[in-house]
C-alpha cells in the first residue's frame, strides 16, 4: 500500500479521518460515509463540514453514549402507517442513509430498532401523517426513523420537534417509483435544545420528493438534508425557512447527489436573523455526476439580517462532471433590512411594526408559496409574526 511508504516510523499511527480533515476535500463525493462511529473522530471545528458549528458545545452530545431513559416521546397520528421497527440492515434501513458525520453515526449506532413508517403503494393519504417528537430537558437521545413510501403513494409526513434536551437523529426516506412524498420537519425546540440531524432520501424513478425544513427554535440545530436518486426522471425539491434569534445557531446543509440521468432538483432556503449572536448557516452542495446527463438544478439561499450582531453564512457549491446538462445554477445573498422599504410603507400610513411585518413576510413569500401546504404555512406565518413581536419589544 502506498500509505505505508509515507509512514516514517512503524509506531506512527495515521488516523485516516484526521488526515482527510487536514487535506481540503476536492469533491463532495470524497467525504466519509460510514455506519461506524469510529470512522468519525470528535470534530475540532476546522473540518470542512463542522467549520461553522460551535463544536465546543457539542462534546456532550457527540460522546458515544446511548439514549437516556425517557429522553424522548414520539407520537404518530395515524397508527396504520406504523410498520414493525427495523434493525440495522433490515428491510430498506441503510439503503438510503449512510451516516455522513459523527452525529448521524451515533444516531444509527444507538438505534437498535428504528421506527418504520410505511406508506402503502398506490395509496393516496388524504390527511398528513403527524409525528410529534418531544424531547426531555437534561437528557440525550439518538434516533433513527425510516419513512418508506411505496410505488405511486401520495403522502405528506410532518415531523414536529418540540421540548428540550440534546438529540442526534436520522430520518431515512425511501421514495418508491412514481411516488409523491413530502416530508416536513419543524424544529420548534425550547431555547436550550440541541438537535443534530441527517435527513437522507433515495428518490425512485419518476418520483417526486419534497423536503421542507422549518427551523425556529433551539440553541443549536443542524440539519443535513440530502438527496440521491434511484432512477431517472425524478424530481426533488428542498425548501427551508428559518428564523434565528439571539444566541441561536441554526444550520442547514443540503446535498443533492445527481447520480442518475434527467433528474431535477430545486433548493430554496430563506432565513431571517435578529438579535445579538444570532447565527445561521446554509451550505448547499450539488454534485452532477458524469452519468447525470439532462440534469436540471437550481439552488438559492437568501438571508435577511434584521438587527446588528447577527451573522449569516451562506455557501453554495456546484460540481459538474458532465457536459450535457439541462440547467444548473445557484444564487446566494445576505442583506440587511432595508429602511427605505420601511419608510415607503410608513409613508402610506402603515405603522412601523406592521410595516416591518409586511417586509419580512414579503421576504419569505416565494418560499412560503412553494411550500403551499396550509397545515405547514399557517402556523409558520403565525410563528414568524410572533418572532417579530419579540423583536419589537426587545
Amino acid at each position: 500500500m502506498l500509505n505505508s511508504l509515507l509512514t516514517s516510523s512503524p509506531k506512527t499511527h495515521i488516523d485516516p479521518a484526521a488526515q482527510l480533515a487536514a487535506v481540503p476535500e476536492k469533491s463532495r463525493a470524497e467525504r466519509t460515509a460510514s455506519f461506524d462511529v469510529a470512522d468519525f473522530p470528535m470534530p475540532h471545528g476546522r473540518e470542512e463540514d463542522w467549520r461553522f458549528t460551535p463544536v465546543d458545545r457539542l462534546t456532550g452530545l457527540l460522546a458515544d453514549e446511548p439514549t437516556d431513559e425517557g429522553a424522548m416521546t414520539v407520537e404518530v397520528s395515524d397508527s396504520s402507517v406504523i410498520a414493525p421497527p427495523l434493525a440495522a440492515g433490515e428491510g430498506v434501513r441503510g439503503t438510503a442513509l449512510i451516516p455522513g458525520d459523527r452525529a448521524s453515526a451515533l444516531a444509527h449506532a444507538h438505534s437498535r430498532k428504528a421506527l418504520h413508517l410505511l406508506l402503502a403503494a398506490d395509496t393516496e393519504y388524504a390527511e398528513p401523517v403527524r409525528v410529534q417528537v418531544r424531547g426531555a430537558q437534561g437528557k440525550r437521545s439518538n434516533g433513527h426513523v425510516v419513512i418508506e413510501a411505496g410505488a405511486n403513494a401520495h403522502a405528506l409526513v410532518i415531523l414536529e420537534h418540540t421540548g428540550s434536551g440534546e438529540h442526534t437523529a436520522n430520518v431515512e426516506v425511501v421514495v418508491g417509483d412514481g411516488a409523491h412524498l413530502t416530508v416536513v420537519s419543524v424544529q420548534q425546540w425550547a431555547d436550550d435544545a440541541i438537535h443534530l440531524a441527517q435527513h437522507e432520501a433515495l428518490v425512485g424513478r419518476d418520483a417526486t420528493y419534497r423536503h421542507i425544513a422549518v427551523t425556529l427554535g433551539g440553541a443549536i440545530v443542524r440539519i443535513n438534508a440530502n438527496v440521491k436518486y434511484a432512477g431517472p426522471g425524478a424530481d426533488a425539491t428542498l425548501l427551508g425557512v428559518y428564523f434565528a434569534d439571539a444566541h441561536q445557531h441554526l444550520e442547514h446543509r443540503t446535498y443533492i447527489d445527481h447520480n442518475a440521468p434527467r433528474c431535477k432538483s430545486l433548493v430554496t432556503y430563506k432565513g431571517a436573523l435578529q438579535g445579538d449572536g444570532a447565527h445561521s448557516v446554509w451550505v448547499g452542495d450539488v454534485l452532477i455526476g458524469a452519468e447525470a446527463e439532462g440534469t436540471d438544478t437550481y439552488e438559492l439561499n437568501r438571508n435577511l439580517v434584521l438587527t446588528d450582531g447577527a451573522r449569516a453564512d451562506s455557501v453554495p457549491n456546484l460540481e459538474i462532471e458532465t457536459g450535457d446538462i439541462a440547467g444548473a445554477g445557484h444564487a446566494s445573498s445576505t442583506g440587511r433590512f432595508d429602511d427605505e422599504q420601511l419608510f415607503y410603507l410608513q409613508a402610506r400610513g402603515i405603522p412601523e411594526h406592521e410595516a416591518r411585518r409586511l417586509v419580512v413576510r414579503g421576504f419569505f413569500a416565494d418560499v412560503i408559496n412553494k411550500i403551499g401546504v396550509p397545515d405547514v404555512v399557517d402556523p409558520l406565518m403565525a410563528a414568524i409574526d410572533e418572532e417579530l413581536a419579540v423583536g419589537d419589544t426587545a
Partner: protein
Amino acid sequence: MATLEIRDLHVSVDTENDTKEILKGVNLTVRSGETHAIMGPNGSGKSTLAYSIAGHPKYAVTSGTVTLDGEDVLAMSVDERARAGLFLAMQYPVEVPGVTVTNFLRTAKTAVSGEAPKLRTWTKDVKAAMAELRMDNDFAERGVNEGFSGGEKKRHEILQLELLEPKIAILDETDSGLDVDALRIVSEGVNRAQGKDNTGVLLITHYTRILRYIKPDFVHVFVDGKVAEEGGPELAERLEEEGYDRFLAARV
C-alpha cells in the same frame, strides 16, 4: 378645507465628514384645491423638501415649522403624517419584494381611514382606478414596485394617490421618465384626484411640460434651498423660455 403651512424651514443632512444645510428657510402655504408648482434646477433641494415634509429619517429639521391645519407635522412619525392626510408620490418609489400590490393597497387604505374598506366596493374601486391609469390587472398580484418600469412605478404612485384620498399631495418629479402618453395618463389621474377630493397639490418638477396637463395656480422657483421667486402660471412660461440661468447667475 386643509392647510399645509411651511415656515422658515431649515433642513440639513449628515454627509461623510460634516453636516450640510440643504433647505435654507422655505416658506410655503398649500390649501385644499390649490395647485402649486415648485420648479427648480437639479440639486436645489426639491426632493429634500418633499422628504422632510414626509418625515424621512435622513433629513434633520434644524429650525422652522410645518403644520397641517395647525397640527405640528414635525412632531409626528412618518405613518402619523400619512394618516393626518399627507401623501408623497416619490421620485424613486421603493421596491418591496413579496408584498403584493393588492395586500399593500388594502393595508394602506385600512391604516389611513382607520377601518378596513368594504371588500366589494374596494375591489371594484381598485380595478377601476387601475384601468384608468392603464395598469394591467396582473399588477395587483405583483410585488410592490418589484420589477416595475420607471413609468409603471409612477402610475402606481398615482394609483395610491387616487385610492388613499389625502388632503395634501406632494408629487416629486412624477413627470420624469414618462413618455407623452404616460404623462397625460398620470396627469389625468392627478386631476381626477383633485377634482374628487379637493386635494391640495404640491407639484415638484424640473420641466414645464407637465404643466400643460396640470394647471398650477401658483409657481415657485426653487433655487439653492429656498424659494427665489413666486408668481402665477405666467412664471412657468417665462421659465420655459429662459430656463434657470437667470437665477443661477444671480447666485455667483
